[in-house]
């Protein structure tokens, strides 16, 4: 049973697909997944997903905890073998050419794994050795990135003395040491305060505007809306939708959301007027392109007693509609 979440305004049709032939298909494909599946024993973590990421694109995986985002990223990083399906990065099979792929990839893992035995700057230089980067280049690159990430003052500090935000910035710097053609970020800003988050976003936006290809996972809607050209929303190992953030908002949440207290009366009145709504926690939510009319209707014809509020729809509304409101661990 598939629920139809689209907003009830068929006359305002919008592009049904993200693909703009001619623009994207002409660009080189960086990641190509077809029916990609990952199982842990009997648990299906990634359930036959297909997607493509093109050069120069910022592509986001949005989904609640346990959706399968990290499992997907780890397969792309060539560190976790797939159960079935196809997966190519830079046109190469991840299982057959892991070294070549990893050579030109940068990774910000979900869990920090900075080497605690090295001070900041030395750690970057050590990491460059794994990529066969000549020492002089590594030194130059480390200094550049430390200044880019505002970590110059910390260059001789041990990793454990860094704050959470600094560690994340250092990991981002580390991921950029080999000038990757593809940067993978698994929840780059989870657990950071707003200042630290914005600093990382700034850095990432610069990278995107310079034409870098970025693949990120997040459960922050704002982050996805902010940084990504295109996103997929994932849940229970499946991709639910794919598209540009603003298109998805339009398509699955409309332009505006009107919220009001939910009573039997209000619900019946809305049904009478053929208005689609969601009801939860004692509230009704109406997805609409005409908030004034809906508000008027609620106040005048449904004899609303309580408060009525209208606001622009956001990616969060799409997300909650598609993935439900049940709490995940």
């Amino acid at each position, binding site marked *: 049973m598939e629920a139809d979440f689209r907003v009830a305004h068929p006359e305002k049709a919008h592009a049904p697909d993200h693909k703009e032939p001619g623009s994207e298909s002409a660009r080189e494909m960086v990641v190509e997944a077809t029916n990609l599946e990952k199982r842990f024993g009997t648990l299906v973590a990634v359930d036959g997903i297909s997607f493509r990421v093109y050069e120069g694109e910022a592509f986001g995986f949005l989904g609640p905890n346990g959706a399968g985002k990290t499992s997907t990223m780890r397969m792309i990083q060539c560190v976790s073998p797939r159960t079935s399906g196809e997966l190519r990065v830079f046109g190469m099979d991840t299982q057959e050419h892991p070294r070549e792929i990893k050579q030109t990839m940068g990774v910000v893992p979900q869990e920090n794994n900075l080497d605690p*035995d090295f001070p900041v700057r030395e750690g970057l230089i050590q990491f460059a050795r794994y990529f066969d980067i000549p020492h002089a280049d590594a030194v130059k690159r480390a200094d550049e990135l430390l200044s880019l990430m505002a970590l110059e003052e910390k260059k001789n500090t041990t990793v454990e003395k860094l704050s959470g935000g600094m560690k994340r910035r250092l990991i981002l710097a580390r991921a950029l040491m080999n000038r990757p053609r593809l940067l993978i970020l698994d929840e780059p800003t989870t657990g950071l305060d707003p200042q630290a988050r914005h600093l990382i976003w700034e850095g990432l936006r610069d990278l995107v505007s310079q034409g870098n290809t970025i693949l990120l996972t997040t459960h922050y809607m704002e982050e996805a809306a902010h940084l990504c050209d295109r996103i997929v929303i994932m849940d229970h190992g499946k991709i639910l939708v794919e598209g540009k953030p603003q298109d998805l908002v339009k398509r699955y949440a409309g332009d505006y959301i009107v919220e009001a207290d939910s009573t039997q009366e209000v619900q019946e009145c809305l049904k009478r007027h053929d208005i689609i709504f969601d009801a939860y926690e004692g509230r009704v939510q109406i997805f609409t392109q005409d908030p004034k009319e809906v508000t008027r209707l609620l106040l005048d014809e449904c004899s609303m007693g309580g408060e009525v509020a209208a606001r622009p729809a956001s990616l969060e509304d799409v997300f909650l509609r598609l993935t439900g409101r049940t709490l995940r661990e």
Partner: protein
Amino acid sequence: MLGLPISYRVWKVWRRNMVTFMRTWKVNFIPPFLEPVLYLLALGLGVGSFISDIQGVSYPRYIAPALISIAVMNAAFFECTYASYVRMYYAKTFDAMIATPLSIEEVIAGELLWGATRGLIYAVLMFPVLLAFGVIDLPSSFLIFPFVILAGLLFAGLGMCFTAISPGIDALNYPSFLLITPMFLFSGTFFPLNLLPPFIQIIALALLPLAHVVIVFRSFTLDMISLSILPSLVWLASATLILFIVSIRLMKRRLIV
């Protein structure tokens, strides 16, 4: 190499450990000097004063090769158990490394070579101390060094197998108590194996790598090299090869999911 995707990159892992080891070299270099002095004083002069000789060899000269063997065992085994476990589980250093062009096989092989190197460093530092006490012969004793590397690799592989299957770092105490400690005592280290019941002798020679290491090292430090060490050399080479491959397999099974 050995059908595993192992290249020159193992030395990058080895070097990473060498760099961090050398950062605290002063602390790391004290025990190799101190330990043989303490053992030779306590066992050699203390216990040894009640022992005229063992098989025609003075007691300090009898235990000297055992001291090197034990040091190599401890250095390599404990490097590849507790220290490797910390890098693997707590610091997630291996996870970071395999996201680079390094393969998991190279990371573990690099750790094993490093474990063997720890044993070699220990042996090299002990060597002049033992020379100064006049308990090892020259130049035949120099022959131990290639076999120190072999023994180091063996105990590194043994340790790495336990690291791969330990649910937690505390579980590593079991092989330390139940394997390393008895091996330390019953490998012909401080008294000849043939004083033990034949049944235990057979078990020791069949299962305890240290027994064979001691046989080989002792023949070199006492300048009594003969073909009788050949079975021990074959035993050590085979065990090292098997443990090298098995430990890499086990670690791969643990880390690549």
